[in-house]
């Protein structure tokens, strides 16, 4: 063999080996990236995106984002991720989106009653129940994801929650369960939500620090004790616990416990307490700044209280809360204004 052709063959062989090595390394890198992309993505959303969104105030946008992405979240399991905690939050938000639509139908129902239009009222009730059913299904999925994320959850024992994220998703999971039950009961039970969720949620709320979580754990427990009086501990007044929980949140610029309190008082038929909560909500905004890291959650609370105010206004007057009148009510005493009797001038 001539020396030049031997050299060429040797070079060719070296190039083949290099290409093969490069291919193997590239494949290994791709496999590594695919296998860990899911984890990285979930980690990014949990640690960066969610805290970022919690600082914003566009709840409507958050609602649309949740409705757009909720279907995709579980697919991350296929790339080696555990998206169940994220799913808890997205299911809750997308369930809330359906609830917003249900509230609008409730207002349409009330307007129809006010205008004595029976057909319109019946149609509104049908659509309201459909939206509540949708909300219940989504929130039940959120609760089931909560059970997958926290395998130890039985409602009797507390797991170790060793980070802010862990506690946050625990709290949202409890709210998923509670809302799923309430929305299913209100819509005729078609979503088949297990009714024992309520008592489990009440026990699960004990696992969170009340002060840290803006009074929400105590508010949830008080709600359960009021609905299930036989489970309330001796010597406890759940309405006082509820008041105290609301104040705990207010001091920190977080008003979400007010929503739980308002819904409890609605259930009890105590309209005056509901009005006072709404008044307090508006009043405290003047002198207690919202916690800057959780503006989104506080805004959700505002929207929910506005929905309650709209309900009360529409029931009484046929129209929702007027612009600028949040915190005021149609039957508030009118402020007297000094006037002059014109008889001496005319």
């Amino acid at each position, binding site marked *: 063999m001539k020396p030049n052709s031997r050299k060429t063959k040797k070079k060719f062989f070296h190039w083949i080996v290099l290409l093969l090595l490069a291919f193997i390394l590239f494949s290994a890198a791709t496999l590594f990236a695919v296998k860990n992309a899911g984890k990285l993505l979930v980690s990014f959303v949990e640690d960066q995106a969610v805290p970022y969104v919690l600082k914003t105030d566009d709840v409507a946008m958050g609602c649309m984002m949740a409705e757009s992405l909720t279907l995709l979240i579980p697919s991350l399991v296929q790339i080696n991720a555990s998206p169940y905690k994220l799913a808890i939050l997205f299911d809750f938000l997308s369930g809330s989106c359906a609830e917003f639509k249900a509230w609008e139908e409730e207002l349409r*129902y009330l307007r129809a*009653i006010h*205008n*004595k*239009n*029976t*057909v*319109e*009222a*019946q149609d509104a*009730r049908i659509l309201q129940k459909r939206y509540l059913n949708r909300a219940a299904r989504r929130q039940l999925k959120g609760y089931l994801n909560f059970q997958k994320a926290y395998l130890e959850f039985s409602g009797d024992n507390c797991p170790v929650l060793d980070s802010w994220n862990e506690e946050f998703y625990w709290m949202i999971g409890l709210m998923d369960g509670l809302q799923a039950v*309430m929305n299913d*009961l*209100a*819509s*005729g*039970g078609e979503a*088949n939500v*297990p*009714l*024992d969720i*309520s*008592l489990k949620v009440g026990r699960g709320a004990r696992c969170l620090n009340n002060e840290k979580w803006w009074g929400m754990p105590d508010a949830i427990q008080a709600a359960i004790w009021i*609905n*299930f*009086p*036989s*489970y309330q501990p001796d010597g406890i007044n759940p309405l006082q616990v509820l008041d105290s929980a609301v104040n705990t949140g207010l001091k920190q610029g977080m008003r979400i416990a007010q929503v739980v309190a308002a*819904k409890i008082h*609605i*259930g*009890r*038929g105590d309209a005056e307490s509901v009005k006072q909560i709404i008044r307090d909500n508006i009043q405290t905004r003047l002198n207690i700044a919202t916690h800057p890291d959780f503006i989104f959650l506080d805004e959700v609370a505002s929207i929910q209280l506005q929905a309650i105010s709209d309900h009360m206004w529409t029931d009484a007057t046929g129209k929702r809360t007027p612009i600028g009148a949040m915190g005021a009510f149609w039957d508030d005493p009118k402020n007297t204004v000094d006037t002059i009797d014109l008889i001496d001038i005319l």
Partner: protein
Amino acid sequence: MYLAPNVGHRLFVTLLLMITANTVLAVPKKMCVFDLLGANGPTYAQAKDYKTAALAWGVELGLKPYTSERVAAEDFKAGLCDAVMFTGIRARQFNSFTGSLDAIGAMPSYQHLKSVISTISAAKAAKLMVNESYEVAGVFPGGAAFMFVNDRNIDTVGELAGKRIAILDSDPAQVEMVTFVGASPVGTSIANMFSKFNNGSVDVTYGPAIVYEAMELYKGLEPNGGVIQFPLVQLTMQIMIRQAEFPEGFGQKSREFALGQFDSGVDLIKRYEKKIPQKLWIAIPEVEKTGYLEVFRQSRIRLRDKGIYNAKMLKLMRMLRCKKDPQQAECTSTDKE
């Protein structure tokens, strides 16, 4: 545009009719609604649908939620509400005829209950719905109440003797029945009769299937308990109105509406019954069923004689049971209801 006078008049009337076709004149009335969960509960949700229907009959109902049935009944009696929605047991003080629908062991199936409600909702039965100033304006199924026992061996009447049974103090029928079988009555309220079962304070409690999950009765059923597959009572929710406060014919329309809701109500009830696992149901042997039925029958007769159950309703229910199964011993008994 020129319109001939009669055409213009007709056009005006047509437009007016179109506008008002779906709107009605309605008098405002208040209805107290009992629901353990208040305005957030399923009964209140049902009342909202009833309110819509009532609008078409000329009444605009303002709903007020009550989590205490006793307070709802008292407020109704005191005139704070013109109508009330509560259990048949509570309705008994206003109309013993419909209030005896919940008679112990009287209605073995939902078909029996539907037949009775259909019968009493007909126009022919209207005068039976009225007692003094009160009128029953609707009867809805509340679900069969089953006995939950902490020992599966309690499947005969005799085995109830000596057992602690939760009873509602407000219902003399329950006190009577429990005493008759030789059991120990333990006074409870709706709020705590299930937690007492779960913590072992009573051996037997009862309720519709919905409580199995909602009150976590599976805890009290561990390790060896069960649910006796025999309807103790057919619970009902009833609407009572102050007759003079409502337009003529309201009550009849309302009763027919309630009857129309029967099937969907029972569908929901059966969904809750399916949630109880099959292994927990305790089937009563046929030979023991006769024993249960006779104990219940004798209890009903005693309660009728004490003026607690209404004789006409008991007779109606007996006639229905015998129509569906003429071979029953009670149909030829000398002391039949």
